Structures are given as C-alpha cells and as structure tokens.
C-alpha cells in the first residue's frame, strides 16, 4: 500500500534538511519512508500531504493525550506536508535545544491559543494527564491554584512564556520526557 520508493530524496535536499533540523541522516530517511507509506501512491513526496488523523494515528502519537494539540501546532491549514512532519520530529528529537522544546511545549499547552497558559488551559492539561475516574473537582482546583501560586510571578492568574520558561528551568525531567524517537519505522 503506497509506494515505498526509497531514496526519492535528492542528496542536496537531504543535506538541506540536516542543516535546517536537528535530525540525523538516518532519522530523516526513516521519516521519509514512513511518510511515503502513508501518503497516496504516485505522488511526489514534496507535494503530498497527510491529514491530521493520519498523523495522530502514528504509533508514536497514538496514545499521547496531547496528540490533537501537537497536530494543530505543527500543521499548516490542517494538513501536514513532509516538511511539517520533519519540523515536528526535529522539535521532539534528542538533539534539539531546550529553547526550541520549551517554545513548542508552550504552544502545545496553550489550548485556547491566546498566548498565555491560563486556568482553563491548566485544567484541561490536568484532565488529560489523569484517568477520567481519578479526578475530583477538589483535586483540579487544588492543583491549578498550586501551580499558579508557584509559577505566576506577576500575579495575573496566567502563565506567560517567560514564567513558563522559568518554571521549566526547574524541571530537569523536561528534556528527557519531551522526546519522541521513532516515527513508525
């Protein structure tokens, strides 16, 4: 199903992608293969697009509670081109720099897309992180108020990017956990 034309990619393109992303050569080729398997047959990979559902159902993202946000942040006009997928893989790769990861994490967690992580966003994040039967109203409000007390430095009841970045600096786990290795190869 789908053509598995390996090395449809030209050498110069590969070099360019290596310079523009944090991915290694093997990773780029791997993603290229996966992309070709999923896209409709016969299309040149630079023109083909994937729907958000197709990307959401990749094994790497299938059980991720934030997969809809990830797809929304990295897609353009609700579809994924090959370069969009590469951009996504680059942010989640091991070699990516912390500033890039923090920037995209902020966008992913900003559910209502107003440029801040406010109470509503926090509640939605917590609901996604826990099983539905584990959550009580008290826990939710307690957690939200704790988080805002700790990280909201300017007392406006929401987290701006700087405050988010500052909070992430104290989370040594972040670089380890915000990582996706294999994209379905």
């Amino acid at each position: 199903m789908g053509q598995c034309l390996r090395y449809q990619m030209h050498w110069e393109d590969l070099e360019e992608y290596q310079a523009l992303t944090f991915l290694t050569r093997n990773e780029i080729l791997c993603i290229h293969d996966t992309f070709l398997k999923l896209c409709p047959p016969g299309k040149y990979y630079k023109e083909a697009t994937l729907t958000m559902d197709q990307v959401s159902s990749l094994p790497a993202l299938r059980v991720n509670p934030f997969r809809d946000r990830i797809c929304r942040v990295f897609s353009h006009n609700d579809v994924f081109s090959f370069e969009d997928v590469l951009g996504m893989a680059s942010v989640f790769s091991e070699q990516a720099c912390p500033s890039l990861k923090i920037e995209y994490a902020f966008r992913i967690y900003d559910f209502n897309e107003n440029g801040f992580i406010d109470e509503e966003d926090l509640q939605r994040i917590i609901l996604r992180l826990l099983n539905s039967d584990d959550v009580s109203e008290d826990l939710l409000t307690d957690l939200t108020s704790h988080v805002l007390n700790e990280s909201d430095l300017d007392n406006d009841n929401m987290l701006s990017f700087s405050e988010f970045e500052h909070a992430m600096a104290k989370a040594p786990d972040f670089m380890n956990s915000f990582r996706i290795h294999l994209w379905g190869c």
Partner: protein
Amino acid sequence: MLRQWSVQSGQAPGEPAGEELWEQEMERLCSSRVPVRTLPYAMADRRILRQLREPEGVKTSCWQRWQRRQQTAGRRLGEAAQRLAQGFGLWEGALYEIGGLFGTGIQSYFTFLRFLLLLNLLTLLLTSSFVLLPLVWLRPPDPGPALNFTLQCPGGTQPQTGVPSFQSQLWSVLTGRAFNNTYLFYGGYRVGPESSSTYSIRLAYLLSPLACLLLCFCGILWRMVKGLPQKLFLGQDYRSPLSAKVFSSWDFCIRGQEAATIKKHEISNEFKVELEEGHRFLLVQQQTRSQRACHLLTCLRVNILIGLLVVGGISAIFWATKFSQDNKEKPLFVLLQYLPSGVISLVNFLGPLMFVFLVQLENYPPNTEVNLTLVWCVVLKLASLGMFSISLGQTVLCIGRNKTSCESYGYNACDYQVCWENSVGEELYKLSIFNFLLTVAFAYLVSLPRRLLVERLSGRFWTWLDREEFLVPKNVLDIVAGQTVTWMGLFYCPLLPLLNSVFIFFTFYIKKYTLLRNSKASPRRFRASSSTFFFQLVLILGLLLATVPLGYVVSSIHSSWDCGLFANYSAPWQVVPELVALRLPPSGQRAVYYLGSHAFRFPLLILLSLVLTVCISQSQANARAIQGLRKQLKWQVQEKWHLVEDLSRLLPEPGLGDSLGPESPHSRSSRPRSFCPGFPCPGSPGPRAPRPGPLLADAACRFRFPSSTDQ
C-alpha cells in the same frame, strides 16, 4: 511567511507600526548568529531566513567556503563523539522499546547499565594498553628464584584433601585458583629490577588503577552535573515544584495503551502525594516546639532501631569472612569459600524488607518513607562491602590486632605463604561471580516460576502474590555493589573489569527479559532525573569506598616477598621515589619533591578554599539578584495595570480602545512574533481577562514580556 506578512499589513491598514515591527524582527533574525534550526518557525520560513543570511547569488570566497565546510565537519564530529560517549549506539533499539513500554524512569536503569559497561571497557583499555601490551611485547626477563624464608608458624598448613578431578577443575575456576599464575591476578606479573631506560611496568601497574579510578570519578561527576537542573539551588525550594511536574510529567515516548494507563495512574498518585506533602509541611510549620521535639524523638527512635539492625548485619559479615579465612583448607571448603558472599547477599536481602516494615510502622509521608528506606539500603550495602574489606584486612594484614606472624613481614605470612594479594584477589573474584550467579538464579529460579504459577493457578494467595515488581532502586544498588567490588579489585585482579563487562552485558539481557516477561510495573513513580542523580551519587560513594583501602595498601603495606611486581619494596608506592631518583635529572627530581612536599600542598589548599569562597559568594549574590528581579517584575506589572486602568478612565468611547491595542506592544515587547499557526497574530481577539475592563482585554493579552530566548 511573506504571504502572511502581506496579509497582515493588508488586514490593518491603519498600522504602519506593525509592518515596521516585522521588518525589525526580520533584520534581527538575519543578523543574529543563532543557528537557523533552533528558531521556532516552519521549515519554509527557516529556509527563507537561511537564504537571506547567505544569499546564493553572492560569490563566497574560498576562505568562507572552507570555513563553512569546517563548521559542518566539526558539527558532524561533535555529534559522532556524543553518540560514542553515549555508548556507540549500543542497545538503542532495546532502550527505545523499554522507554516506550515503561517510561523513562525504568529506561534510566538500562541506560545506567550501558554507562557502566562503557566505564569498565575504558578501564580495561587503559590497563591493557599500559600494562599488558608492554608486558607481552617487551617480554622482560624473569627475576631470580625466590629467597627461602623460615617461618615460625603455629601448627602446619594442611594439604588439600583429595576431591574428584572434574570437580576440582570446575572448583578451581570458580574460586580462581586455576588462574593463579595468569595475568588475571597480581601474582602472575613478574618483572626484573628497575633500570633507567626500559619502560617501567611496575610504575604502569601501580598507576593504572589510580588513573582508572580518577577517570571514572571525573566521568561520573561530569554526568552528574550534566543531569542537574540549572537553577535548582538558586531558588528557595529544593524539590522540583508542582508546576514543573505538571508540565513535564508525561513521557512523550510512550507507545503502548497499557503503559499510558499505568502512567496516568502514576501521575495521579504523584500529584496526590505532592498535595498531601504540601499540607503536611504547612501543618508541621504550625507545630509548637514541644510537638517538634516529640516528632524528632520518634524519628530518632526508628532510625536507631534500623541502625542497630545494620550493625548486626555487618558484624555477621565480619564473622563470616573471618571464619572463612581461618578455615580455608578444611574439607568443608565448598560452603566456606562462598560463605562471605552468601552472608553479604543474605543480609542485603533481608535488610531492606525489615527496613520497609519498620519505616511503615511510623506515620511518615510517602516520599519520606521511600527516601529513608533507600538511604538505609545504600548504607547497608556500602557498609557490607566496607566491613568485608576490613575483615579481609584483619586476617591477611593483621590490621588492628597483634599477631606474631605479621611482625616480621608486615603481613600474615604463615597463612598466606605464597601470595596474599592473590588471596584477596580471589575473594573479590568470588564475590563478583557470586553476585552474577545470584542475578541469574533469581531471574530464572524465582521470577520465572512465580510468573508461571501466578498465571496458571488461581486462588487468593496467587492473586495477592502477583508478578514481581521491577524495583529500580534495588537493581541499581546491586549493580553498583558489583562495580564497587570491581574497583576494589583493580590492584589485585587487573582483569576484573573484563569479567565485570561480560557480566553487565549479560545482565542487560537478563533484566530486559525479566522486565518484559516476568514483571509488572511498579505503581510508584521513579523519576528519571532524580534517579539518575541518585545512581551517580551512589556510584561515587562506592568509588570512594573502593579508593580508601587501595590507597592504604599501596602506600603502607608490604607486598608479598616472593610473588608479584613489588616483592622487594616496603610498599608499592616506593617504586615512585626510586624511579624518580633513577630517571629524572636533578632539577626534575627537585621539582617532583617540591610537588610532594608541604610547601606546595598548603598554598594549593588555600587557593582552592579561596576559589570555593568566591563561587559560593557569587551564587549567593545571584540568588539575591533573582529575588530583587522578581520584586521588580511584580511592581512593573502592577504599574502596567495601573496605567491600563488610567487609560480606560480617560478614553471617552469604547471603539477607540481596539485601535490603540496593536501599537502598545511596540514599546514593550521584544519577543519575536511567530508566523506559525497555533500562535496568535496581533489582530486576533483573546479571551476576557478577569481584571481590567472588557474592552481592553484584547490589548492586555498582547503584551509580551521580553524573553530570555533572544540569545
């Protein structure tokens, strides 16, 4: 991006200021030297930026092209070196699989195994290239036959009782006797007296364990520091705050549905525990002094009890080692050979169970329970190994007791006529083998049957028993103990790292099999970051524990008279002064003596203290600066809202409010506007902010604070 740009200017014809802002931003991005791939824009935008920075039409000089090639080559080399440092990409697939199924906490144990394998191989490389290869290549002449000594010993040594030949073959391999004269043990190395021109194998043999330990120390320290969060110690809180946990809890590498459910349970447990700890902390702070004293006493009570248990455990180890050494040649040596190892393993098996039971009797918060049990397990493990080496020291070297046989030669020559270093090496060799065999036995004789029984049989007992939990701390302690034994044995058994590497290699696969088939994930979360720090810390403690006996033996203990490299020296370290006198010119000798003298050590110590003082005061000043900056931030924001309220009072009509919005960020924000979707453009409406008037909610949402990403 250019498309969006024109759309932007098209949408708001009355804001030339907005377009100016884009231009400024583009100029800033083009002129900055930040690599393009670190910028948070879409690939097409990054490509345009890259072309703007280095337009293709412009002729680049040879020098620039060469420079660029060097940069790419340098970057590739850096990436390759990083991969090498992480272990040649060994086991990458297996690590990803484990991470995907169980999360990064358990994956960190297996990454740690890979790191230890690397350390052992490095040690082996160092030893073989500086000691073994020259020995094999140069083939120094054998020294003359050993001098005969007459000893006054109580009783006589009994000959070994006859055992069937096959069993004795296997037994001599397991006890190490078969390798007595090979390069595995100290006794197999023989070299003639020192001369002034040839390569000194003695010096290499002496210095390579010390160099290996130093290298391992630096490697572990470097990894430890790399894993530390950057600003952990500057803030008020020592633990990572709840906000950070909320945002970094989810392991994005998880792939299995079951693992996701388990992870969600873990996260909810962790949040509940954190909130409970927070409440408890507040309660504790409100306690009166007498209540606090009471609390302290109950803390002490359980700790003293556990301390007594630990003391009891290690005395058992002491007696077992002594007994085994005193009865080395008796017929029942089957049990006695492995008695110390057996007792150590038993103590370390029963100890944690009792600690858990005792700690749970007190009403501690869950985190404290876990930490306390862990600390005591570490203490028990390291104390067992320490006591083992002290006990060996007592029997072999008469440390701390008077025995006539030790007086003439400095070691217990009656019982260890041939080679005491070999005996010590054999003990450590046996301990290493026993640990590995125990791991294998537990995996296949305990976990596997347990899983089979739990699956096949039904009944309340079997459902209660359930599969084994994969406890990361316990496994880490085991492997660290094995590594400490290897480090202890570097001087007596130089090829022990080779053995340990083989053991670690097989342990990886055995543990992976146990994890994937016979275990269930523990409901208690073990965070990857703090756990990595904890592993490295315990490893460093083990290394220090191994260094102390080595240092003592090398500097003060007389080697065996008729075996090994240091037969005629009062202590192995005496080779160094001899070689210095033999090989260096007088000025060199003076320099070396100066380096070893007090006149050098004291100024060095004073200098180091000064540097430490400067570092500490700098970090304190930084902490104060951070406090000041936080206060300034709060005042600035209050001022902002004050101005916004003033503005809303002054404006007559609500309609004008919107047009002022996009201009105001001009003076305040310098955060790069993003051209990607999922991020608001200045013209988009935002939600209602609670405090200011509803008309200016939009304007308020567009304020950005200068971020620190503009490096």
